[in-house]
């Protein structure tokens, strides 16, 4: 059976089924004089439920972290919802229902209410209301939870795992999770991922019909497969898969302290993309040779005033110092359009990706831009800092930005403030127009960094956050590969170096193509670094160049992908 691969890893073990228990609820009407007693019972049960959820929240928070406990805060909110409580009371008073029947009816009604809007978030809240309702009903009717104690480690199978179910499981006894319903954002899945427990969800209704307690199963959380009563052959196959996964992890980890070198010993610049200082630590821990993209937006978000020169200076200086002479490329503010800043008060745009953002905004709001450039210049005195402008589409923009920078230099010189006069200036190549005029841009900058995320979006006219067209978004499209090549060649012809800071730089399949196309610097998020270092060690530039030539001759995305997959070493 196939489901959604929700948490990676493979497990082989015996099944333990958690059945949905149907609670018997009497719909008998109560006598008028019972009303007050039922209301008291309800009140008591709600208080007790709150206590239980609070202690679950505390335990989960302590064991797994605040993010994992957040769901129970939502449960408490439902218990404190005045409409919810008032509606239950009114069912008891007006319709003379027993307390548990009133809870069940009102919970159902609210679930229906949220079901009118189709939305993943509301779908999850419906499950929460059901979970809370069940908990109150259990307390009122004195039906305890079925014990989930078992001795061996088991594979848990259920229709759906509510947060309450999940909290009752001892993670040490859980080999894997499999559910008929659920999504990648279910509470149980979030917990499984944080504990490294493999999970496959959304397998479908037939799941429970086909499993029985104690039967053997293979759960493949990488490919989303559930294999019931597998053959000995299959089991052997998966046992060796488990072993090789563990070995691969170990091998990849061994690259932590190794330099990024090709098989014939050429050192390659593998650097990191960061958006805050925590991520810097992750890059350094994996042996990143610097920072190829420092997104500065985090400094500006969630505040009423833009960050001062002093504040920015201290962040840039600290980052550069932590890098101990390794390069730090600071990208100037890339905001506007769909990323709003409250203090800018920008009106919403019809087409934010083609709108007022990044350098376009900075060149108009030179007050903001100058503060950032002055801070970068001042920090450049204390480390190996370079500056990079985003969203450049013309020479005019580049020159205008450089004029503002020059202006800042003069101000600092006049005030006798130190900065690095040789600060390297680069542009992000992320708009097709910039690729087309790359030869012209290259004459006026020190480096290029190809921003593939936007470059792909603008080249293929695909908004990758739009699910309907997301599968058209691909770095393997021949047009994208040609643009990458063109940029690298134009840069090299003008004698400047060319890096890449989009996600494509950490793409395993694309790596030999980029290496063979003579890319000088690979900048990626921390998770990709070790794997890329490992892959680099299997190639020489010469071999990769042969592959790159061959790839340039291919005419479709499918051909490119297939060829690169075949060449993966």
């Amino acid at each position, binding site marked *: 059976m196939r489901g959604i691969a929700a948490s990676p890893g493979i497990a082989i073990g015996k099944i333990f089924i958690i059945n949905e228990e149907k609670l018997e609820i009497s719909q008998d009407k109560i006598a008028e004089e019972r009303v007050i007693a039922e209301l008291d019972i309800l009140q008591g049960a709600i208080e007790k439920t709150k206590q239980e959820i609070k202690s679950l929240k505390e335990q989960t928070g302590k064991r797994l972290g605040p993010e994992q406990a957040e769901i129970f805060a*939502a449960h408490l*909110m*439902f218990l*404190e*919802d*005045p*409409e*919810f409580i008032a509606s239950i009371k009114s069912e008891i008073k007006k319709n003379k229902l027993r307390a548990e029947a009133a809870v069940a009816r009102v919970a159902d009604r*609210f679930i229906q*209410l*949220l079901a*009118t*809007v189709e*939305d993943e*978030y*509301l779908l999850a*809240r419906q499950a929460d*209301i059901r979970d809370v309702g069940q908990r109150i009903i259990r307390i009122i009717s004195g039906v305890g939870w079925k014990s989930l104690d078992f001795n061996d480690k088991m594979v848990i199978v259920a229709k759906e795992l509510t947060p309450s179910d999940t909290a009752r499981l001892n993670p040490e006894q859980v080999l894997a999770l499999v559910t008929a319903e659920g999504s990648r954002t279910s509470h149980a899945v979030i917990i499984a991922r944080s504990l490294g427990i493999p999970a496959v969800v959304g397998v479908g209704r037939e799941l429970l019909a086909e499993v029985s307690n104690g039967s053997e199963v293979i759960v493949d959380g990488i490919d989303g497969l559930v294999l019931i009563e597998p053959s000995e052959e299959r089991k052997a196959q998966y046992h060796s898969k488990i072993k090789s996964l563990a070995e691969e992890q170990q091998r990849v980890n061994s690259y932590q302290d190794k330099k990024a070198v090709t098989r014939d010993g050429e050192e390659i610049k593998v650097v990191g993309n960061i958006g805050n200082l925590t991520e810097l630590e992750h890059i350094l821990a994996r042996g990143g040779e610097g920072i190829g993209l420092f997104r500065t*937006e*985090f400094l500006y*978000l*969630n505040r009423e005033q833009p960050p001062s020169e002093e504040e920015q200076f201290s962040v840039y200086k600290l980052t550069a110092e932590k890098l101990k002479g390794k390069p730090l490329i600071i990208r100037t503010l890339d905001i506007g359009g769909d*990323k*709003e*800043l*409250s203090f800018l008060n920008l009106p*919403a745009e019809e087409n934010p990706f083609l709108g007022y953002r990044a350098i376009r905004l900075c060149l108009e709001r030179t007050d903001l831009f100058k503060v950032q450039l002055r801070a970068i210049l001042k920090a450049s005195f204390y480390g190996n800092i370079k500056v990079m402008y985003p969203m450049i589409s013309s020479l005019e923009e580049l020159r205008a930005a450089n004029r503002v920078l020059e202006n800042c230099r003069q101000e600092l010189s006049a005030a006798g403030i130190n900065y690095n006069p040789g600060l390297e200036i680069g542009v992000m190549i992320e708009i097709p127009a910039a690729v087309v005029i790359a030869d012209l841009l290259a004459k006026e900058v020190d480096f290029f960094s190809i921003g593939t995320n936007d470059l792909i979006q603008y080249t293929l006219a695909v908004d990758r956050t739009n699910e309907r067209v997301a599968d058209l978004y691909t770095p393997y499209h021949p047009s994208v590969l040609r643009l990458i090549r063109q940029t690298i060649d134009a840069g090299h012809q003008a004698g400047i170096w060319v890096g890449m800071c989009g996600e494509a730089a950490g793409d395993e399949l694309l790596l030999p193509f980029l290496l063979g196309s003579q890319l000088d610097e690979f900048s990626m998020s921390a998770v990709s670094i070790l794997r890329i270092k490992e892959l680099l060690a299997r190639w020489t530039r010469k071999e990769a160049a042969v592959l790159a030539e061959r790839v340039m001759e291919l005419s479709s995305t499918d051909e490119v992908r297939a060829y690169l997959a075949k060449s993966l070493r």
Partner: protein
Amino acid sequence: MMVRKEAIIKNKTGLHARPAARFVQLTKKYQSELKIICDDREVNAKSIMGVLSIGAVKGKKIILVADGKDEKEAVAEMVQFIEDELSAIDQDNLAKE
């Protein structure tokens, strides 16, 4: 007396998901009866389930109503939340991405 005021939802998420929870947190402290009206539907502004169910998405006009001792303050704070804090929550989400 009763205080009524209009507001327009400007943020991407709307008055929904986490923002709805934050909104209900702030309404709880008022004694007045608080309501939100959206597309002719009226819900209790202190009820998380009510607020979630009205579908107040970006661009929707909503009316905030308060009736009681602290009605003025309540409406002012609700409007302020809708107009200012909601967009800050958007940025919060952006920062997490």
